[in-house]
């Protein structure tokens, strides 16, 4: 496939993509059984310039899907293309054009910041002249200028991720795939990381594909796909997804949690009940009518109901609602 042809393709296309891991045993076992599908018939498209968030709980299949897209894992069925290049047959064309940050810190820890940047630049075929320009730029951008001689393994969690981002950008890719880039780093570093991504998006028109379990990060994306048990439950803009929650949402803190939960779940007009810390989130058909009924039912059992109010459903509630429905379908 020629580059010109590649220009007309979206950044990422997946159609009915399936990935089943072979069950343990490795090359020594002759009988290869099929395990459950880690990615189970996913179809999605990521347009150029878009920031796409792949959201889902641990084990949903985010890492697997990302690796299949990059050709790091062999897909079982379906189609997957990056800039029109097939993940299975043209992986190197893809790898020259994208940057990737693995979920686990995966840069050589016993090389310095500078050595890491040089290595990835060399491997990606970035010339010396370009390196002299790009490396200081990226160091500045990632705030690592002072740490060039430090071993990568000695960096803090946030700085490691920034170094990984810098390394993944060294060859000026058109697309970066980030697998839980803010996992295990502090809130301040998280904000910094996202503001770096924001700059990239604004200045370079970079396409960003980001996996994350955090809902607040999902809200920063143009579009979001919700992955659950390997299936794409929904895929839309954050605004539309928020509408997916049923009815209206009442939030309150009961004085006795477990009995209150059991009681409210059974009340008429309560479509769905979610827990949120020590609070309960009840989705109801008619908030004005149902609110006094809930308060009355709880008081009858001697349970106080503190701070009951109607709130706007956020991504979090919408997702939980969607996942609960999806899980029920599965049973």
């Amino acid at each position, binding site marked *: 496939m020629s580059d010109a042809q590649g220009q007309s393709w979206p950044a990422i296309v997946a159609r009915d993509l399936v990935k089943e891991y072979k069950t343990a045993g490795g090359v020594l076992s002759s009988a290869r059984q099929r395990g459950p599908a880690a990615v189970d018939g996913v179809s999605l498209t990521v347009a150029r310039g878009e920031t796409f968030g792949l959201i889902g709980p641990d084990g949903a299949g985010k890492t697997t899907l990302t690796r299949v897209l990059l050709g790091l894992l062999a897909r079982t069925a379906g189609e997957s293309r990056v800039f029109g290049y097939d993940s299975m047959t043209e992986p190197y064309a893809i*790898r020259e054009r994208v940057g990737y940050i693995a979920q*686990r810190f*995966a*840069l050589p820890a016993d090389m310095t910041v500078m050595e890491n940047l040089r*290595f990835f630049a060399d*491997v990606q075929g970035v010339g010396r002249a370009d390196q002299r320009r790009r490396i200081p730029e990226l160091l500045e951008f990632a705030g690592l200028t002072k740490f060039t001689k430090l071993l990568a393994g000695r960096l803090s969690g946030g700085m490691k991720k920034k170094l990984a981002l810098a390394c993944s950008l060294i060859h000026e890719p058109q697309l970066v795939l980030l697998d839980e880039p803010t996992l295990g780093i502090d809130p301040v570093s998280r904000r910094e990381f996202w503001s770096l991504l924001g700059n990239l998006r604004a200045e370079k028109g970079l396409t960003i594909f980001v996996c994350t379990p955090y809902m607040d990060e999902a809200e920063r994306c143009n579009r979001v796909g919700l992955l659950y048990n390997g299936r794409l439950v929904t895929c839309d803009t954050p605004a539309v997804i928020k509408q997916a929650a049923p009815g209206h949402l009442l939030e309150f803190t009961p004085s006795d949690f477990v009995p209150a939960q059991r009681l409210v779940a059974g009340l008429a007009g309560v479509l769905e009940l979610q827990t949120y810390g020590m609070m309960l989130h009840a989705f109801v058909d008619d908030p004005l009518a149902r609110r006094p009924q809930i308060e009355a039912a709880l008081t009858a059992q001697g349970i106080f109901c503190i701070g009951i109010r109607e709130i706007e459903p956020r991504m979090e509630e919408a997702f939980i609602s969607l996942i609960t429905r999806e899980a029920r379908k599965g049973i």
Partner: protein
Amino acid sequence: MFKRIWTVMQKEFIQTLRDQRTLRIQIMLPVIQLILFGYAITTQVNHIPTIVADQSLDAVSRAFVDALTTSGYFDVIAAATSQAEVVSAIDAGRAQVGVVIPPGFAAHVGLDDAQVLILVDGSDLFTSQSAYNAATAIAQAHASQIVVQRLQRSGQVRPDQSWLPLDTRVRILYNPDLKDLWFLIPGMIAMLLQMQTVTLTAAAVVREREVGTIEQLLVTPIRPAELLIGKIAPNMVIALVNMLTILGMGVFWFRVPFQGNFWLFFALALLYVFSGLGLGLLLSTVSQNQRQVQQLNGMIMVLGLLLSGFIFPRSAMPPVIRLVGNIFPLTYFIPIARGIVTKGIGLAYLRNEVAALAAYVVVIMLLATWTFRQRLD
């Protein structure tokens, strides 16, 4: 392509040199192993602790015991009075060889029916073989000396006498100059080189997988073969340093004469190093972690030692076992190393072994690259 290989090599050298401690161990380990192994063998062959029950205590029996001790093979550590005492000393592990000389030894020698009982601790293969060989050889040499002396005294010297062929027998049995070590040093070079290359390479790749860096490398345009070639480069340098130190120690320290052409040996050792690197790569692709690498490598080492002809001659093995031995690069290199170092023979005599080794390297490298590609999942 070459640029990417070069880049990977640079990375590997940076990482190898950064961990000085490990590097020092890797350089020193074969030296230490060779010293231990070399001395273990020399002490086993010489100075075997021996207990003597001389029940005659006459001039002839004392001369016989002297003949045993002056050979250097036997150190008389105690004297006993009975055979039972000798046996119990060997049982207790205080002595490995016992000599029992019955009463009236001188008289029996005169009558040509003298008997000496030599008891050898059979639990130690090396020692018992050396002790057995040495004791019988010394006894025969001593007996022949007595006969010669007697003939000289009686004036009936007949040098062409055919019933005294002890001279030739003695030469076969007698092993005066630690020839075992001459025989073993080339084998040890082969063995230690294999151990180093296989372990280093397998560990290097598996570590990359364990810490997850393999993922970040694979997502670059580096091809698997380029990555593998780049990764083995520092190991090859280390293996060559190991080879030279082992060889140097063998020649200058253990005084094993190097009979053949050094450069021929060097070139073939280089080829052999590749076989170990390939085997290591293959090992790494079927292992999930470092522990598995070590277990598999241990198994390969033990089987290699047993089946390669390092200890037991391959000609004596059943065909199936000999076939299994072909899995190990050691099998091909031992005849090459012994041929060049000990016998001093040239390429013309080693054609088959060299061809087999070269074929082995090609097959193992292709197999390693192929399985590596397959196992990205």
